[in-house]
């Protein structure tokens, strides 16, 4: 180990007396603008003692700082503390800022999925959905309120307006579809929960110690968390990521086009019980095909914005799915008819 300063700082964060006991393994983000991640191991342990992050590009330090601030604030709540790796220390070394978190047991759901040999894709996803239901309810219950359907529609329009402002020559077909679906959401006249969201609730960020309900679960990567957002966005993020899990290139784009149909099993296992638990009434209304379609558009518009925001350069995102997918879908389907009775103003 050559960087003695780094090793000593990590050992201090890990409360390890002898820095030479630590073995630093670097597993960096796969994105060109991602984070450098060190896992500090002590021989004999089954999990890393500490996980340390630093930005590969110093211009992107704000993302890691945002995660640090969110984790330290959220862990004050004992209901969330059990789900979030502890924030241990920050330190500067060789001109870079480092963020140290406690290592946690378990593997990500995606790691379990990609290492399956005999289990079928569908059976694994259904088990993930059951585990995700439990953990999403725990997170969302910490801060939630009933939001009117107009608020939900406004949330969709807010993301749509951002996309229209950020992307030159934004396709008219997507804008028309978005507005029409916003009207449909507003017409629902039932409430949906709004409050704390993880923001990137997906099989890549859920660590579990097994496949059963009741095993230890941790959520990582909290940099996108928000205190006031429609909470079904988290659920749709999970379902959508599951549908696309392990798919690349053309197969991925094809799966996006068929997402509502491919997600039927996950909707039954995750979205349906989540709506029943989180809403006082109206779950059946939201699960009707027309409303479900509107909720999908809400999520896709949100995801397209997220995808676009993550680009350090306009073309700096390898596997853009949502915006091209929305363009393709909006050109294939006629914009939904707006209800004349709607009093909702765009």
């Amino acid at each position, binding site marked *: *180990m*050559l960087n003695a300063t780094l090793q000593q700082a990590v050992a201090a964060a890990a409360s390890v007396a002898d820095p030479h006991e630590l*073995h630093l393994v670097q597993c960096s983000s796969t994105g*060109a603008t991602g984070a450098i991640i060190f896992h500090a*191991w002590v021989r004999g342990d089954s999990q890393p003692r500490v996980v340390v992050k630093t930005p590969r590009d110093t211009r992107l330090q704000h993302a890691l700082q945002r995660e640090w601030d969110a984790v330290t604030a959220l862990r004050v709540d004992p209901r969330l503390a059990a789900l979030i790796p502890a924030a241990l220390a920050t330190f500067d070394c*060789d001109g870079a800022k480092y963020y140290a978190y406690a290592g946690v047991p378990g593997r990500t759901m995606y790691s379990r999925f990609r290492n*399956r040999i005999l289990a079928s894709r569908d059976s694994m996803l259904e088990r993930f959905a059951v585990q995700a239901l439990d953990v999403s309810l725990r997170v969302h219950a910490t801060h939630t309120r009933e939001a009117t359907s107009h608020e939900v529609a406004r949330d969709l329009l807010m993301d749509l307006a951002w996309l229209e402002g950020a*992307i030159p020559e934004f396709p008219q077909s997507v804008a028309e579809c978005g507005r029409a679906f916003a009207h449909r959401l507003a017409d629902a006249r039932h409430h949906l929960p709004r409050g704390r969201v993880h923001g990137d609730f997906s099989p890549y960020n859920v660590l579990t110690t097994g496949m059963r309900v009741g095993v230890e679960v941790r959520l990582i990567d909290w940099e996108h968390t928000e205190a006031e957002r429609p909470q079904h966005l988290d659920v749709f993020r999970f379902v959508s990521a599951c549908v696309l899990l392990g798919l690349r290139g053309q197969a991925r784009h094809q799966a996006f086009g068929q997402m509502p149909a491919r997600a039927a099993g996950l909707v039954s296992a995750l979205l349906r019980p989540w709506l029943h638990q989180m809403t006082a009434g109206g779950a059946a209304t939201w699960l009707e095909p027309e409303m479900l379609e509107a909720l999908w558009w809400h999520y896709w518009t949100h995801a397209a914005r997220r995808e676009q925001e993550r680009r350090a350069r306009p*073309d700096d995102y390898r596997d853009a799915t949502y915006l091209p997918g929305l363009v393709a879908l909006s050109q294939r389907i006629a914009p939904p008819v707006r209800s004349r009775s709607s009093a909702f103003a765009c």
Partner: protein
Amino acid sequence: MERPGSLLTEPTYRARLREATRTDWRFLLGVSPDDVVLAGGADALHLAHSLSPWVRKVYRLDQQQPPDVLDWVFFSGALSPQEGAAADVTATLRRAFDALRPGGHLAITLENRWGLHWLADWRTSRRDTHGRESTGRSVTRHGLRWHRERLRGMGADQICSYALLPSRDAPRAIIPVDPPCPPEAQKMALDQVWQRASPAAAIVRKALGALVTGGLMRRLYPHYLLVGRKPC
């Protein structure tokens, strides 16, 4: 509007990723903004370009540098034009080592001829960021042990080595090989770096895990980073 066809293609993205991650080992090695470095080897041009934002000054092997100022010497790719001649490689290493200040470090990235490249696309690409064929040789004729002995013979101390995955150009995982790290840590790194989701890939990952447990994997990694220090 950015049409789907105009989005960054996978090969172009990979090339950009390689450029962005080429010097990811700088964190682990402790390269600081005050350091003066020398870039050598067949890929010296790319290496110098990638290092320049993170250090004070980068010299090339063919440039004259003041004595006793070099904090680091990096070699990437074949060390000398006549790679086959052991004496030529040794002379290149010796010249670079002598140019280091006392306490400075020499680092070499190597492709392992006996590495398990065939399991995945882990061979260092010969293409540059514009998709052109690179002119430099990437595979060195001599292995990790040979280079380690050369460093030891020159008087280097604190010699250590790391495995670089998936390639020495874009090392997303850097695993301590000598001194070794715990098997569980190696398995986690292998699992993180090769994420293809298929039953065949899962079986291969299990086989790699068995090689780690048996202590064999440390000789089979496709790429290594070897580092030695010039004594103070």
